[in-house]
């Protein structure tokens, strides 16, 4: 009984990720896609918010969207797991529901 939350917005531009992280339940999954992956870069000012969220829920990031934006695997925050589109499908299937933060 968990929710997969998807975030497709840059946290620097919009409040979607911040709002998402404020509404997760313990055991939920958060997947950063599209411009949302920008949050997962090491050294960025939202690293702390993501690190804090890792206690309650698991954070994933979509690998092809990272690559498009020039963020290498070594530049992703520790503890954030990369998945491909198949992994996205698996996450959606494993959760009970999907909530998109647009």
């Amino acid at each position: 009984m968990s929710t997969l939350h998807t975030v497709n917005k840059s946290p620097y531009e919009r409040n979607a990720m911040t709002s998402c992280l404020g509404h997760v339940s313990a055991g939920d999954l958060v997947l950063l896609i599209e411009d949302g992956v920008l949050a997962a870069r090491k050294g960025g000012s939202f690293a702390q918010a993501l690190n804090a969220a890792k206690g309650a829920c698991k954070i994933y990031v979509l690998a092809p969207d990272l690559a498009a934006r020039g963020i290498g695997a070594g530049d992703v925050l520790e503890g954030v797991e990369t998945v491909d589109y198949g992994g996205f499908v698996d996450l959606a299937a494993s959760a009970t529901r999907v909530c998109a933060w647009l």
Partner: protein
Amino acid sequence: MSDGQTKKKFFYLNRKAPYGTIYALESLEVVLIGAAFEQEVSLGFIDDGVFQLMNNQDAAGTGMKGFSKIYRALGDYEVRKLYVEKESLETRGLSVDDLMPITYEDEDEDYAEKPSIVVVDKAEMAKLIADQDVIMSF
């Protein structure tokens, strides 16, 4: 699911202000159509979504079509649960008094008028999200 296998909990997650974009209006159009399907329906208003419920909206000067009256009619469509987030209101300097009075008639209590808007805090909103079958985001 409370009433048979086909009844699902539908949650409409509204996070955007009205008029600047069409999402609020087209979300309402889904709610109205969805009402005919006899599912368990509730609406969540988070972030700028709370502005959708502002009282005294008058879009005439912009040339756009106002649609705030539709919210007041939701009760007639058996849509009676409008959850508004407290923290979202406060950040914007709003209270429930700034919102439209939206009510429904409770057939179990001699059709007494009851408020459809329920202010909940962020933790309660998170629980609501975690309790749904289908979440439509706008």
